[in-house]
C-alpha cells in the first residue's frame, strides 16, 4: 500500500473507534432523555420505539409539581449550597495557612485530610446516626450539611492550598509593606486573584453534596425533607415503576450539575489530582 492510503485507513480506523467510544459513553444519557419525552404506551410496546413517535413533555410538570420535585430541588439546593459555603469559608483560611506558613505538624494535618477523603462513608454513617440522634439532628437539613462537610472540607482545602501555592508571594508582600494585616491582604489582595481556584473548590463541594445519597437516605425519613437523589430512588415502585416520570426527574437532577460543569470544565480538570472527586 502507498503511504497516503495507509494514512487514510489509519485515520478512518481511529474515527470508527471514536464513534464506538461516543456511543458507549453517550447512549445511556441519550436514552434517559428519550425515555423522559415518550408517552407511556411507547415504552411498554414490543418492540419499543427508539425515537418517540410522539414527543410529550408532560412528565416534567407532572414530576415537578405532583411529584413535589420543586420541593426536593429546593432541599438539595439548600444542603449543597450551605455545605459549599461552610467548607469553602473554612478551606480558604486553612488552604492559605497551609500554603504560606510553616505550621508545626502542618504536613501531618494535610495528610490526614487527604486520608479522610478515602474513608468509606458507611464507616461514618453508623456513628453519625448515633450522634445526630443524640443532637436531635436526624430529619434535619442542617444535620445533612454537617455530615456532608466531612468530604467537602478536605477536598476544598487541598484544592485551594494547591491553588495558593501557584500564586507569587510578592502579591501579598507588597500589601503587607503597605500596612495591610495578613487577613486584610488575604481578603483584599489574594482572594480577588484566586477566584478561579475558589470557584473550582466551590464547585467540587457543590457537586459532591448535590449527588450525595447514602447519608440523605439514612438520616432523613420525613418525605418533605428529601433531597433529589433520595426522591428519585423513591420513584422506584415495588411492583411497577413509571420510567417516564423517573427519567424526567433524572434530567432535572442532572441539569444544574451539567450547567456548572460546562461553565468551569477547565478548572475542574486541572485541579483533579488534588482530591478524589471520582463519584
Amino acid at each position, binding site marked *: 500500500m502507498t503511504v497516503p492510503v495507509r494514512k487514510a485507513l489509519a485515520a478512518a480506523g481511529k474515527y470508527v473507534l*471514536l464513534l464506538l*467510544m461516543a456511543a*458507549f*459513553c*453517550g447512549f*445511556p*444519557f441519550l436514552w*434517559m432523555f428519550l*425515555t423522559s419525552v415518550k408517552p407511556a404506551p411507547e*415504552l*411498554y410496546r414490543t*418492540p*419499543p420505539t427508539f425515537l418517540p413517535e410522539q414527543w410529550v413533555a408532560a412528565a416534567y410538570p407532572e414530576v415537578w409539581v405532583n411529584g413535589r420535585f420543586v420541593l426536593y430541588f429546593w432541599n438539595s439546593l439548600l444542603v449543597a449550597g450551605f455545605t459549599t459555603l461552610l467548607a469553602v469559608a*473554612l*478551606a480558604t*483560611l*486553612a488552604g492559605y495557612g497551609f500554603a*504560606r*506558613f510553616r*505550621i*508545626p505538624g*502542618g504536613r501531618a494535618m494535610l*495528610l*490526614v*485530610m*487527604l*486520608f*479522610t477523603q*478515602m*474513608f*468509606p462513608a*458507611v*464507616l461514618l*454513617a*453508623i*456513628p453519625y*446516626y*448515633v*450522634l445526630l*440522634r443524640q443532637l436531635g439532628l436526624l430529619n434535619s437539613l442542617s444535620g445533612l450539611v454537617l*455530615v456532608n*462537610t*466531612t468530604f467537602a*472540607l*478536605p477536598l476544598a482545602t487541598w484544592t485551594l492550598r494547591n491553588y495558593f501555592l501557584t500564586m507569587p508571594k510578592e502579591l501579598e508582600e507588597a500589601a503587607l509593606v503597605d500596612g495591610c494585616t*495578613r487577613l486584610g491582604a488575604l481578603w483584599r489582595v489574594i482572594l480577588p486573584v484566586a477566584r478561579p481556584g475558589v470557584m473550582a473548590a466551590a464547585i467540587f463541594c457543590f457537586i459532591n453534596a*448535590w*449527588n450525595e445519597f*447514602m447519608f440523605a437516605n439514612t438520616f432523613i425519613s420525613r418525605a418533605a425533607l428529601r433531597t433529589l437523589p433520595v426522591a*428519585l430512588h423513591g420513584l*422506584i415502585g415495588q411492583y411497577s415503576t413509571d*420510567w417516564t416520570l*423517573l427519567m424526567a426527574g433524572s434530567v432535572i437532577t*442532572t441539569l444544574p*450539575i*451539567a450547567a456548572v*460543569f460546562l461553565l468551569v470544565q477547565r478548572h475542574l480538570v486541572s485541579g483533579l*489530582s488534588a482530591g*478524589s472527586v*471520582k463519584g
Partner: protein
Amino acid sequence: MVTGRRNLQEHGLMGLALVLPAMLVLVAVVLYPLARGIYMSFHNVTFLNLAQGNHLFVGFQNYLAVFAKPAFWTAVKNSAVWTVANLVFQMALGLGFALLLNQPLRGRGMFRSIALIPWIVPSVVAVLTWRWMYDSGNGILNHWLMRLGVLDAPVNWLGSVNTVLWSIIAESVWKGTPFVMVLLLAGLQSIQSELYEAAQVDGARNWHILGLIILPLLKRHLAIAAILTVVYTLNNFNAIWLMTQGGPLHASEILVTYAYKTAFQDFNLGQASAIAVIIFIFLSLVATLYISVVERGE
C-alpha cells in the same frame, strides 16, 4: 525582614490560627465519629439498647460473629471480584480513550465532551438509568440483544445470581472510566510531542512507542488513577444499593452494602461497625500507598 526566630514563631502561630477552624471541624465530624465507630465495634450496640448509653464491652466478639457468617465471606469474595474487574476495565478503557483523544483528529473537542458525560451524570441518576436499560420486560438491552440474535429469550440481568454482579460492574465501569481518561489525558499532554516524533523518525513501531516511551512517562498518572479507582470502587455504595441492594441472595453484596445492611436493616450497630473497621483497615493500606505517590510528586 525581621530577625529569623521571632518571625518564624509569629508565622507558626498565624498559620495555626488560620488552619485551626478547619481542623476543629474535621476533628468533630471525622475523627471523633471514627473513634466512636471503632469503640462501637468492641461493644454490644443495637438499635434497641442505643438509648441506654451504657454498652457492654465484648472484646472481639463482634468481629468473630461477623467472621462466622457465610454472607460476610460472600461479600469479601464479591468485593474482590468487583474491585479487580472495575480496576482492569476502567484502566484499560481509560487509557484507550486517552490515547485516542490525544490524537490530532478533527472533532476531538466534541468527542472529549461526550466522553465526559458519564462522569458528569450524578451517580444515582446513572444507576437508575442503567437499571431501566437492564429491565427484564421493557429494557432496551434485552430488546437489542434479541433482535441481533444473541439472545433467544429476555434475560433478567439484575434478578439472576449469575449475571447480577457483572451487570452492575458494566454500569460502574461506564461511570468511572472518564475520570481515569481525564487523569491520563492530562499526563499524555505533558509528554512533549518531540519525543514521539523522534521515535517515529527512528522507525519505532506504535506499540514500541506506547510501551517504551509513553507508559513509563505516565507511571505516576497511572498509579494515581489506579489507586483512586480502587478506593472509589470499594466505597461505591450507590451502584449496588440502587440496583439490587446486594441481592439476589447476596450475589451482588459487597462489604460496604453488607455493613450498611447489618446496621440499618438488622439493627446491629456493633457488628456493622466491626465490618466497617475491616474495610477501613484495608483502605488505610491503599491510602498510605496513595499518600506516598503524592508525596513523591511534591
